[in-house]
């Protein structure tokens, strides 16, 4: 518990919704609405959920690209919004990798320049040192150091994602936010990139916040998982526990929606197929946010919002029916 690199407490990110052209705000879109999360050193925590669940907004808040409305984020013992020196250090220590490596690289810059850019911005080493470091980084991510003077269009999608990863680790960060890092890649390339990320983690003790909608990848990659639904956490726990014994009906539904690459198992499997779409985060249901799609919802679910409560050691879920609060 003491080795938390990142600690998030009651984080909220709300966006005003403008409806008229005069910029009047008519409501709030609560993208992240009271989330607690920790990441330990060297740990991979996955954030899963459907589009619109707020997982990318949470990632952006951790990197500092999105200012939280309220709540606390403590990184390596220092709270966000606590002095410029801290902010600057955090910019080195936390990096992000996005889904689409094509738009993440400047097409007019040599890839070596792109990788060296964070080093230059933070004034690390001389030009010569940086060139040296770029070669080292390219080799580390499995590319030929001689290709540093090529433009991104000379590389395939998988190779470009390696370049983006090289740039992200250039400043020796402690935490990488990986926002769907393999979703845009072909199947045979996906496993190569996942292996690279695992290797870098083992080698440098990196922590990962892994944002993904692909539960099979999460099962393979993450130590712990947090399931998000409309801005709140529905369930958290060790990946193996949550996947084999999901407590929240939403987790159950998500897992059973993933088709298994095994036709026989797939045919005989009990599945929960959710009806309808994710409700709009601008107008979430009252009570438990999942109650409108939940197959087991009861009246209490529409009235009060459940809090995250322990199910078993290291696993928590927010469900009135599955994890009833003890009477006080």
């Amino acid at each position: 518990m003491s080795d938390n690199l990142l600690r998030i407490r009651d984080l909220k990110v709300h966006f005003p919704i403008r409806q008229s052209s005069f910029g009047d705000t008519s409501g709030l879109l609560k993208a992240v609405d009271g989330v607690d999360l920790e990441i330990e050193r060297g740990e991979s925590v996955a954030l899963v959920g459907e589009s619109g669940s707020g997982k990318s907004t949470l990632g952006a808040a951790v990197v500092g690209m999105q200012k939280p409305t309220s709540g606390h984020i403590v990184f390596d013992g220092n709270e966000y919004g606590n002095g410029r020196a801290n902010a600057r250090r955090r910019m080195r220590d936390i990096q992000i990798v996005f889904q689409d490596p094509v738009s993440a690289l400047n097409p007019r810059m040599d890839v070596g320049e792109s990788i060296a850019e964070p080093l230059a911005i933070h004034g690390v080493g001389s030009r010569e040192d940086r060139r040296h470091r770029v070669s080292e980084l390219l080799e580390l991510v499995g590319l030929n150091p001689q290709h540093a003077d090529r433009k991104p269009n000379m590389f395939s999608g998988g190779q470009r994602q390696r370049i983006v990863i090289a740039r992200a680790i250039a400043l020796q960060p402690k935490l990488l936010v990986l926002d769907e890092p393999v979703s845009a890649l072909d199947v045979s390339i996906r496993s190569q990139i996942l292996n690279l990320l695992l290797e870098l983690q083992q080698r440098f003790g990196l922590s990962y916040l892994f944002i993904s909608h692909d539960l099979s990848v999460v099962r393979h990659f993450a130590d712990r998982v947090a399931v998000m639904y409309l801005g709140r956490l529905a369930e958290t726990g060790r990946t193996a526990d949550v996947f084999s014994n999901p407590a929240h009906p939403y987790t159950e539904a998500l897992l059973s929606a993933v088709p298994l690459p095994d036709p026989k198992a797939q045919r005989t499997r009990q599945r929960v197929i959710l009806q309808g779409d994710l409700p709009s985060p601008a107008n979430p249901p009252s009570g438990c946010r999942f109650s409108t799609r939940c197959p087991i919802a009861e009246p209490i679910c529409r009235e009060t919002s459940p809090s995250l409560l322990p199910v078993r050691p290291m696993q928590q879920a927010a469900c009135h029916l599955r994890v009833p609060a003890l009477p006080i």
Partner: protein
Amino acid sequence: MKKPVLSVEDLRVAISGNPVVDGVSFSVAESEIVSLVGESGCGKSMTAFSVMGLLPPVASITGGSIRLDERQINGLNAKALKSLRGNDMSMVFQEPVASLNPLMPVGRQIAESLLVHRKLGRREAQRQAIAMLEEVGIPEPALRARQYPFELSGGMCQRVMIAMALITRPRLVIADEPTTALDVTIQAQILELMKRLRTETGTAILLITHDMGVVADIADRVAVMYAGRIVEDGAVDDIFREQKHPYTRMLLSTIPRLDGSDAKSFLPTIKGMVPDIGQWPEGCRFSTRCPLVDEECRRMPPLAPSGPGRDAACWHQDLIGGLA
């Protein structure tokens, strides 16, 4: 065996002289779902576009035949193809929102093929469109029919696309990555819908996907493509039980599994990547990435029968069981 609705024989497609589809044969029967799987650049979308007569101007069919209910449709003129598309065959694309007309209510978009192909009156076409929306599981279909694509979610837009594709009860639907852009919960709904509709309407479905889970869920038969050729085909259960081509074998083993056990272990990988068009190696196209490669692989292995209902194109089928 049922008569094929679609049969493709030795199809060849080239882009400015370079082959992209190189002798592909398969068929799809009534009510059957056949899946073409493979990574980007293997030619699966070009195969689909050839069938629909929608190849981009730089690409052209250089050989082979495509038959819809025994009638050859490659080489038909634009007008004849137009009368088939949206009537006897239709297509569902990956990006539902981008594929719909943003300026037209969805009901009218669905009704359009009835107006064009069936010469129905506007009122009757609209009535059938609303009935179709209901059939694909859209609540309040009469209200939704009057709405524009931006007012609907991605999953609903995909249902609209499917309604559009099925309104004329076509013989063949080609679905190109129909659920790739959707969340898993919505994907599950759409796959259930496709399974139900093919039994109800008898439509033959050619499903193009890279997702082996989707294949296992709804396909009856599978053809695996690599660099312009089919390297293996067969019934879905057989292919998943035992692979007769190293590419299929390795493709399946590189996928992380939801029911897997070895968390945080290194996944098996296929070295390198799919060769670019025009850079295909001599002989077996997979030879540059294959662990079983030897002298023999310099000759192109033919796609030959390998067990009942099975074909494979590999000289070393007996060694595949030993691969990771």
